[in-house]
């Protein structure tokens, strides 16, 4: 095994640990920012971790009559997100599993997690589970094509759908960041992040009100360590998507080699970028209300249009 390979595996393991450890902290930071902006004291940024520890100590109660689908869903969700966290270019553009860091593979993995959770929601046979699953699939069906289109606009000029290649390509010619294609794609991608991770105005992560909840309705039947897995995976998906957005559109700081120093710089840069993006998202959420479910397709159609414009603009405006 060459030194290059060892370094790449170390980088990959590093970003895995960073995402797993940092995801609940990111959620904590976002809640704290929101609480501060609203004039509340807030629970501190460590609260999501404390919640997870509490949940892990509890028994996982499963509803009567639910099948293995219900049991497996949190694991599938967690595992698919872990794979993305390991292969996507967060710290270094050199990855031991380069082939898996493909745009289509990453979107498919995201979809796998969404579908497994929706199936689990249906499996319980309760009204809430089915309702949450149907809403989640409506949103997923509209937002997945947008994610593909938005990143496709960036990959068209690199000539590869490999995420690491896209990031490296943007890094070598930073002028591209101010091109209309990447600005439009950035808007589309931001909307998709909001829709995929169930943030305002699409879904309210802090509610248990029957009319408004989407993600919460699906996971209502989970308890104990199953719930901990779902919560951790949800936080990780947010972190992974924000990290992808940060590195695709603002790739500065990411290591193009596997030198320890470059990796350390990349780590700090990633934490800062994701932290700032998350805090920005939290501040944005303070000022808006949740939209009616029927207006959500409008928002997603707009973001699809931005993605499509980004692709066509990247062809006609060179």
């Amino acid at each position, binding site marked *: 095994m060459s030194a290059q390979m060892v370094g790449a595996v170390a980088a990959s393991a590093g970003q895995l640990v960073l995402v797993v450890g940092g995801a609940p902290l990111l959620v904590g930071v976002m809640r704290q920012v929101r609480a501060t902006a609203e004039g509340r004291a807030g629970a501190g940024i460590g609260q999501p971790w404390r919640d997870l520890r509490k949940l892990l100590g509890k028994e996982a109660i499963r509803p009567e009559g639910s099948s293995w689908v219900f049991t497996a869903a949190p694991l599938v969700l967690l595992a698919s997100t872990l794979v993305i966290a390991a292969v996507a270019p967060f710290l270094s553009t050199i990855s031991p599993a380069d082939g898996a860091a493909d745009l289509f593979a990453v979107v498919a993995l995201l979809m796998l997690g969404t579908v497994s959770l929706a199936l689990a929601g249906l499996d319980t046979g309760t009204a809430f589970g089915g309702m949450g699953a149907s809403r989640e699939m409506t949103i997923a069906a509209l937002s997945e094509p947008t994610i593909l289109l938005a990143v496709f606009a960036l990959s068209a000029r690199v000539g590869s759908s490999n995420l690491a290649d896209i990031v490296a390509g943007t890094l070598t010619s930073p*002028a591209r960041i*101010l*091109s*209309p*294609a990447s*600005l*439009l794609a950035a808007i589309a991608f931001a909307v998709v992040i909001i829709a995929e991770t169930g943030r305002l105005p699409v879904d309210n992560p802090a509610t248990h009100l029957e009319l408004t909840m989407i993600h919460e309705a699906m996971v209502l039947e989970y308890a104990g360590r199953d719930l901990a897995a779902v919560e951790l995976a949800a936080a990780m998906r947010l972190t992974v998507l924000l990290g992808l957005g940060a590195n695709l559109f603002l790739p500065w700081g990411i290591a193009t080699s596997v030198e320890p120093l470059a990796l350390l710089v990349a780590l700090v840069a990633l934490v800062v970028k994701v932290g700032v993006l998350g805090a920005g998202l939290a501040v944005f959420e303070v000022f808006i209300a949740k939209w009616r479910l029927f207006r959500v*397709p*409008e928002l997603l*159609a*707009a973001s*699809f*249009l*931005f993605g*499509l*414009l980004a692709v*066509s*603009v990247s*062809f*006609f*405006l*060179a």
Partner: protein
Amino acid sequence: MTEAVFVQLLDLICGGVLLTAVLSLWRRELAAIVRLLVAQGILLALLAALLGAREHSTELYVAAAGVLVLKAIVLPAVLRRVLRDSGEAREAEPLVNVTTSLLAAALLTLLAYGISRPLVLLAPSATTRALPVGLAVVLLGFFVLVTRRRALSQVIGFLLLDNGITTTAFLATAGVPLVVELGVSLDVLLVVLVLQVLAARMRLTFGRTDLDELRELRD
């Protein structure tokens, strides 16, 4: 100014023009759409100024100043006045719902790209390659014209259409002669003023500016 910087600025401005046109399909409040028109007017003036800086032409600078005054100050002011007087015209009330019109906008943009390909191939350069943006804005303006009910929304469609034509003219020929530009601008101003009077009359007669009410006149 180097070629690379010029191309980058040109692409950015054209992207901005397209973005403002699309966003005006998305927003419902007329006041927000008028703000988008102001932004688009400023972008058009920047486009003219950018081309002027490249060609070292005073005429284009004058055209840029004219565009700025007319499209970013005078016309939006007229629109705001109509909006304030009418009071009721808060919503754009499209005949086609917003989601469908956004998808239609996507198709229209692709169509603009398709039909302008032969034109671009005639003389490929950075400015002509941006031509589809101008055509797309023209088509989006048409779309707004045919799918909106209120008189004021239709004026906005008309202005989008005109902005698209101006963009196309600047990109295709580096600006039409100043006399023609002045004539067109005056025409647009007159049309908007006439439409303003028309909207005021409609409101006096029907109490609102829904164009469907005009059916009554035929009987």
